């Protein structure tokens, strides 16, 4: 089945500047997820392999509305940028072994699946926001910054909902809606950072470059929260 991932990464890398190729890449990834999900009998969200694929698919899925947005419809470069990001995480998943074990009982709840899926939708939108911020800094097209804001605002909404569902899951699973672990601390840092982003934007046109940079830095914090904490810090709450 891994050939579906390789095919989707190829389509993203070499054809994503044309929408039909981008859509074909997304279809291949969704097929892979559907096949794995039906084999496991649940959403594939455990372990680095599955989460990286889910992240990559989320980037392509969340990127779609932006690729057909007014102003970007004929812009193959942004479309390709989103495709490259999706391809990067799809390829990163390949060296990791897929875990085919049943869900531990504590993870066997809708709140957990909701928590993780919403977090990845948010991460994906933060990634798209970073790409749009980069293109804004290169081209100074105000429309790109407005799209970055939309990506960040919708991402922030998904992330807030993920924190709420995570808190409800934690309360029923662990007895507390909050644990002081590095993962939770960095989750709060990420949430606060995007709160900061939304408030910096209120400072007006003089801060436009700063806003674009904040969108890029935010994705760096996103990657540290997702991958860095799990790899570099001891936390009971990691993938």
């Amino acid at each position, binding site marked *: 089945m891994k050939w579906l991932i390789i095919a989707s990464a190829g389509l993203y890398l070499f054809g994503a500047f044309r929408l039909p190729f981008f859509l074909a890449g997304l279809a291949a990834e969704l097929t892979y997820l559907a096949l794995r999900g039906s084999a496991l009998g649940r959403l594939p969200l455990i372990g680095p392999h599955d989460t990286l694929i889910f992240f990559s698919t989320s980037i392509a899925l969340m990127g779609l509305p932006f690729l057909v947005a007014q102003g970007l419809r004929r812009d193959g470069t942004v479309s390709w940028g989103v495709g490259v990001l999706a391809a990067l995480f799809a390829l990163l998943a390949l060296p990791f072994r897929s875990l085919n074990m*049943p869900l531990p009982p504590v993870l*066997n709840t809708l709140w957990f699946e909701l928590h993780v899926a919403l977090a990845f939708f948010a991460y994906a939108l933060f990634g798209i926001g970073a790409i749009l911020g980069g293109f804004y800094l290169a081209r100074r097209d105000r429309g790109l910054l407005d799209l970055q804001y939309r990506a960040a605002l919708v991402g922030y909404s998904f992330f807030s909902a993920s924190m709420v569902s995570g808190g409800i899951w934690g309360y029923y*699973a662990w007895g507390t*809606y909050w644990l002081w672990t590095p993962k939770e601390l960095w989750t709060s840092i990420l949430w*606060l950072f995007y709160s900061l982003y939304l408030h910096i934007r209120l400072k007006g046109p003089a801060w436009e470059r700063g806003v674009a940079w904040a969108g890029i830095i935010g994705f760096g914090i996103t990657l540290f929260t997702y991958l860095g904490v799990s790899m570099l*810090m001891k936390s009971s709450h990691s993938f």
Partner: protein
Amino acid sequence: MKRLYNFLASLDLGIWLVAGVILFLGIGSFVTREGSAINDVPLFIWLTKAPIAETWWLLVTVAVLALLALNTVLCSIESLKAKWQRGSFLARIAPQVMHLGFLLIVLAHLLSAYGGFKDGGPLPEGGSFSFPDGSRVEIVRLDARIGPMGMPLDFSATLRHATPAGERHAVFSPNHPYFYQGFGVYLKQVELFPAKMALVEIHREPGAGLALAGALFFTAANLMILWLRRGKRAEAAQ
């Protein structure tokens, strides 16, 4: 006095305070060591008992957060005063409801940090423990379903609780705790060999209800803002 008020109610101060909370939480994630008791006792107890070298980042964070809470209240008041005569009601109120949600969540953390409770340990099938109100809870039966790879697929415990109002029976399992008088009894693990044993914990989170209320306010206002943005896009497209 007016200058102090303007300073405390400024967006700039809010931005710096959020940046400060981010900075100290980031430091805290590196300072907190594995094996720290931070999650084992209510936070205020940990703050008073643990060495200052381990707690200083959280003390600074709480102080900055207190100032941020004040700044949030004052900014909301100023924003409402400034926008009261213009724009739609939803546009005026949505950001302030988000702020209210944030403040309720901060308050919830304070309540849990002060009045939280956690206890627990291993118990054999047939074993019992004393509930915080003095009543007795007995683990009558332990069940587990083990998968072909040796991993537990599911486990549960049946308890008998002798309360002053009479005997209660319940089955509790992961994600389905037993609740009584604000306390939750949680089943963390069950082992069948060499003897049937369970890891049972009792928790109380006095801030949970307030945190949920804050989260609901925040989410509702967040959806309002998204809806309002959608309206703006539709206007721009016409």
